[in-house]
């Protein structure tokens, strides 16, 4: 393997340095370093490779929308070196065989580390616990469990799940949505939903489940993670829980940091997503919550859908939007450029903390001699008009045509370039 040297890159702490990478490891930081391949880092941020805790790779079962390979490529282009694949595949990832298959497909693809998330309940049906222990013991080594797309709404099942995974250090990632309050809901409850004649999804359906679950986490002494938090009310509940010392973490998606329900316009199905896009007040609340640490991480909820699932009536359209390739730019644009957070915090929410929650070794590590070389170079001055060109199999990006600031120029996974000058490196033949 050839060595790589990155010249004059800026680290999150502001220092400018050369970095030598060889044998998959950061060998040295300093001045005037030499290597086989030289990357100019002037003006670029060198950060720990991003880690996504919430990705839908659709394989097995929905390969028309995405595969582990295409999703991995999109992730690499977005600056990710590790992603967590959600369990709502077909068959559902509720047993060792499926999570091992997804893990294997990730290794074969080779662009990022693919960590399967296991279902909490069999078939995501919310009744019987899935094979939590066996998935943990499998080669996939699952530690994050989620019925994402559905809420574990039964309080007893949720309590048991929290208790059960505690013994092997697992975490339950809850999709917080009280189903009885959100029957047929397709957008945020409020004046806009009333005008469009759509059933509203009230904030209390999210905050109510979170309130219950943080108290369950406290009662059981277990670890809880809240997926895609979207409302100001939910922020307040999580803030209260953290103050109380409850072991809870929370994520927000890039789209909830940037977009509001106004984007829906006249039933534009690209903007149909669950939880729904909210109001300006909510956007401001989740941004502030990232800044003050109430929300721990950004996770994409990358949810690819085939064209026919969006080219239809609003009521029939699938929920979800893609996000792996645009996440870093959205987070930079909404949080760093606005002065709400600094680069160290950016690195923390995009890499360090998601790696910690996912229990994933070798990612989100400080950039120092001896660290595994999972890195990203990000150009904060590059303005991009988002195009429909994507490595994802699906086209349902909500940002097409929008101008975002910031671009991933290089991604290094296990010491190997997966993205160079903003372009994906085809790995065949490069693996040797």
């Amino acid at each position, binding site marked *: 393997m050839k060595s790589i040297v990155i010249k004059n890159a800026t680290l999150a702490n502001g220092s400018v340095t050369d970095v030598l990478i060889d044998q998959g490891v950061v060998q040295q930081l300093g001045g005037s370093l030499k290597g086989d391949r030289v990357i100019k880092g002037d003006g670029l941020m060198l950060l720990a490779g991003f880690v996504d805790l919430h990705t839908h790779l659709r394989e097995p079962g929905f390969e028309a929308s995405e595969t582990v390979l295409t999703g991995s490529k999109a992730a690499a282009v977005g600056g990710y070196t590790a992603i967590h694949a959600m369990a709502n595949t077909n068959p559902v990832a509720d047993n060792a065989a499926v999570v091992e298959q997804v893990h294997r497909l990730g290794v074969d693809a080779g662009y990022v580390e693919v960590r399967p998330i296991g279902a909490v309940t069999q078939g995501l049906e919310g009744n019987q616990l899935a094979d939590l222990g066996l998935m943990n013991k499998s080669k996939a080594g699952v530690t994050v469990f989620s019925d994402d797309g559905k809420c574990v709404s039964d309080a007893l099942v949720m309590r048991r799940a929290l208790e059960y995974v505690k013994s092997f250090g697992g975490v339950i990632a809850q999709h917080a949505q009280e189903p009885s309050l959100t029957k047929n809901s397709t957008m945020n409850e*409020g*004046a806009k939903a*009333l*005008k*469009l*004649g*759509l*059933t*509203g999804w009230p904030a209390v359906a999210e905050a109510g489940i979170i309130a219950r679950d943080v108290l369950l986490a406290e009662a059981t002494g277990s670890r809880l993670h809240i997926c895609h938090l979207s409302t100001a009310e939910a922020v307040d509940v999580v803030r209260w829980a953290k103050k109380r010392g409850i072991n809870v973490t929370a994520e927000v998606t890039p789209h909830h940091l940037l977009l509001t329900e106004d984007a829906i316009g*006249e*039933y534009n*199905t690209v903007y149909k997503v669950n939880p729904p896009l909210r109001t300006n007040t909510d956007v401001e609340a989740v941004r502030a919550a990232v800044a003050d640490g109430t929300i721990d991480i950004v996770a994409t909820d990358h949810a690819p859908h085939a064209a*026919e699932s969006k*080219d*239809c*009536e*609003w*009521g*029939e359209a699938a929920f979800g939007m893609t996000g792996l390739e645009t996440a870093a730019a959205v987070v930079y644009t909404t949080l760093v450029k606005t002065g709400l957070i600094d680069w160290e915090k950016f690195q923390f929410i995009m890499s360090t903390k998601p790696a910690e929650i996912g229990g994933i070794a070798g990612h989100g590590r400080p950039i120092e001699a001896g660290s595994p070389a999972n890195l990203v170079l990000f150009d904060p001055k590059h303005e991009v008009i988002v195009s429909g060109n994507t490595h994802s199999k699906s086209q349902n990006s909500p940002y097409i045509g929008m101008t975002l600031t910031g671009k991933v120029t290089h991604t290094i996974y296990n010491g190997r370039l997966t993205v160079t000058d903003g372009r994906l490196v085809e790995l065949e033949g490069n693996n040797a």
Partner: protein
Amino acid sequence: MKHLLSIDDVSKDEALAILNLATEMREVNTREVRKLPALNGKVVANLFFEDSTRTRISFEIAAKRLSADVVNFTAKGSSVSKGESLKDTVLTLEAMGVDAFVVRHHHSGAPQKIAASNWSKATIINGGDGTHEHPTQALLDALTMRVRLKGASDSGDLAGVRVLIVGDILHSRVARSNALLLRKLGAIVAFAGPSTLLPRTATTLVDEVYFNLDEALENSFDVVMMLRVQSERMNSSFVPNSVEYTALFGLTDERFENLGGKALIMHPGPMNRGLEIASKVADSDSSAISEQVSNGVAVRMAVLYRLLAQESK
């Protein structure tokens, strides 16, 4: 105007032009030969994904009186029951040559979707979409109010007219379209209903909101429009039961007596006699319910004429 999707698309001038054309069509409908050649050779397809009596038949008669060829598509018994998508249904009919689709759909926004897509070049007329809008109903309601309150030959707006719409506002496409249109025409519009069916945000749509019908009726309305309340609302905890609904929000004989014949009574149909409106009230001289239906034909003739015969203007 290429399509009629929402009252939002209709300017005040456009609305008055439609109403005034409808006034002429009312006259045509009284002639011995009630037919105009305006849409000769045009094909109007009634694309109905939801059950309907009056709207479908009204559009059919309207189109036929303008000499258009009319085809009726209903989801029941079609390939939709085999799982055919809206897109493929529209593409199929489009390929056979359709000039206008009248779309009735259970999903809010379905006509908007067809109009915004590249599936069809035809004119799209919203015949009622989900719980969103029913623009031709609002136009026929406005015409009925104008004829009854200002005379059959009036060509003006509804400035200062006070209209109370009562019932299940949350699920009513009639309420939404009427609120938009009547306010555009200068009327003052109020909603009344139980707070489970009348969201707090309704204040963004109308001038006044009442959660007590008796209190509302004290505020001298020129028009009281009762909405159909569906029995399923009783089963999903919107209101306790139909007896309580009638007692609190029904236009009963007693409430009607108290109005002293001063208000015009309307209902878009189909009515639940004895539930939201007493039978005697529906059949009284104050009631314009049958005129709403006959004005429906005139208004739909006017809409079809403006969109299909005058579209190139």
